[in-house]
């Protein structure tokens, strides 16, 4: 069972309390009525589905109820970090570097 750190409950909780909610940091166009169908498709439907690091929204649905963001590895399912909604996207190289340091320390 995965343990996920909720930045609002400030605690690791079982994955059973959470629900995934798709990619994070997708900005809704401010001129949504003016954009073309292709631009809307790009914003609304098209995702990268990367192998490896991904930034996602998660919701602590059976806990505090809050949405937050997470950096997760789609291959290993490892959560690198979680952070509150509205906080800036963490630097990828910082995350991977700290992971390498942790690995080297072992």
């Amino acid at each position: 069972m995965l343990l996920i750190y909720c930045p609002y409950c400030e605690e690791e909780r079982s994955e059973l309390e959470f629900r995934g909610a798709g990619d994070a940091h997708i900005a809704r166009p401010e001129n949504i009525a003016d954009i073309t169908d292709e631009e809307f498709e790009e914003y609304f439907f098209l995702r990268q589905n990367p192998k490896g690091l991904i930034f996602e929204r998660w919701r602590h649905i059976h806990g505090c109820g809050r949405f937050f963001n997470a950096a997760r590895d789609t291959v290993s399912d490892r959560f690198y970090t979680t952070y509150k909604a509205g906080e800036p996207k963490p630097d990828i190289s910082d995350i991977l570097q700290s992971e390498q340091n942790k690995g080297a320390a072992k």
Partner: protein
Amino acid sequence: MADQVTASRKAALTARGGSAEAILTPAPAATRISLRAGADALPALSAALGVTLPTRPKTSASSGQRHALWIGPDEWLVFDEGEADLMAAAASSGTLHSAVDISHRNVAVIVSGPGVDVAINSGCPQDLSLPIFPVGACSRTIFGKAEIILFRTAEDQFRVECWRSFSPFVFGLLSEGAADAGH
């Protein structure tokens, strides 16, 4: 002429159950509100409700028969075992908030005995050891298929709140867990 019919309320749970290790008792009727409010409304709401709304995760505050449980950063479960009118109390705060009367949406089961943690952990993934989940701690979580709110009222006692229609399931799974706690 038809006789006047008087309706009487039927409790969702009536029988006691469990085992010697974990006794299950349906909690008496209580009034409850689901309260949502911003940080600046808390002093007025706390004064009106007569209990200080906690702001730390997983904590609660109690004053007599009245209890306020932290559910989320702007959400509380407030209940009163004496059935006081919590809606009127919240409204008297005069500050912006949302209060929904959920007195009859929820029912509660009191689980007590040396095997409470084993009984609840039969369907709940939370760490219920005393350093992590001390007396007074509370949390919305999952119990089997049902969402519950856990509130530790003593080292060997929890109040388990669930939605009324889930209560036969919750009571049944707690009974299974209580039986297992003896082994």
